[in-house]
């Protein structure tokens, strides 16, 4: 039986927010906002490395 590829791994980020939280043990404000922006910026290095593999 083929695995459902849509739920495998963490495509779109290099370092997940769960891993990154070790560097920010206390978030005094809205953690969901911090997470959202973290993941949005994480997308760029992820895109970079995968495009090096696939396009360059």
């Amino acid at each position: 039986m083929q695995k459902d590829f849509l739920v495998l791994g963490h495509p779109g980020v290099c370092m997940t927010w769960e891993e990154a939280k070790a560097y920010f043990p206390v978030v005094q404000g809205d953690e969901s906002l911090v997470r959202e922006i973290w993941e949005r910026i994480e997308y760029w290095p992820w895109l970079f490395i995968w495009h090096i593999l696939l396009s360059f």
Partner: protein
Amino acid sequence: MTQEERYQARLRRYTTALRNGKPDMVPIRPFVAEFVAKYAGVSIQAATHDYRVAFEACLRCAGDFDWDAVVPNMIYVWTGLVQAIGLKYYGIPGLDLPENVAFQYKEPPEEHAFMRPDEYDLLIADPTDYLLNVWLPRVSNFIKPPSEKVTVEHNLALLKGGMAMMEYFNALGGLVQELRTRCGTVAAISGMLKAPLDILADKLRGYYGLVSDLHARPEKVLAACEALMPHLFLIALDGADPTKNVPIAFWMHRGCVPFINPEHFRKIYWPTVKPMVEELWKRGHQVLFYAEGNWDYHLEAFRELPPGSIVYHVDKGDIFRVHRVLGDRFCLSGGLPNDLLALGTPEEVRAYCKKLIDGVARDGGYIMDAGAIIQDDAKVENVRAMTEFTREYGQY
């Protein structure tokens, strides 16, 4: 007719054929690569190392030839970026190669493959981590692994590489717009997909390494392909046309018989490609199967895909057979031999185009193109003959 009216007419023609319908005439969509440099009178080095030169050459061709769609820069590897990162697997025109030789891939011998056979578990556990921390330092002359001291060259390569990639992709968006406003020409594709098995061969294990692994550790190869799928899928989706008009290009390399055997295709290659294509189609994106080489052995497998979900491009395959097997389900493109464009006469090109139109385009669902990307060996008069004849004879 304004450029926008021309663009809209071409877009209708192209997308009608893509959906396997019959437009007003056979669309023309040549995958012109180094040909554009030759036509514009610039060196291949200039077009490859300075993408702005390639873009201008592409626009000049699109303006001069009556083509419905072209790929925005089929000289897709900007070697300036490659050099900034110090990628070892390229031969760069004007640097490692004579200035009028197209860029080349250099595959290391099996014993020096960029990924070692005992590293499958690392790749499977976290493909992105493996690529960043193991693979990239191996393929770059400048970038260091986490275990080594960073250098000025390391820092600069990452900074320059990231910024350069952003510059290039942003510029590509501008080219798509200029093709529309200056030439009335449609950007033929948007986004890209590759097969997990091909990626293992192309950039990680090398072809020989992969073939050894398919026999020695097939379960690891399958698991690695499955681990790559979510990332390849997201890359395809990221670059896809938001208007869902033009297809995502699926560049097919060495996943066919006889590069691999039928069992490996059936058990590994196809089960890790088909679900991605089906999911993209569910989300409204067509995929263009750029079947480089000859994939005729696998036509029945491709028939399993939903009607209209792909466009099937023929290179060395028998396009008349492909039409018999797939023509009721999918649009076809290509089939004009590249050696004819390079070595034939305009009369021979016209005769072959007639054969193609008569054989596969009578009911629509066909787009005129060469079998493979058109490089600088193609004669200008032959490309012109393909274009003019298709316009004259390809009316419905």
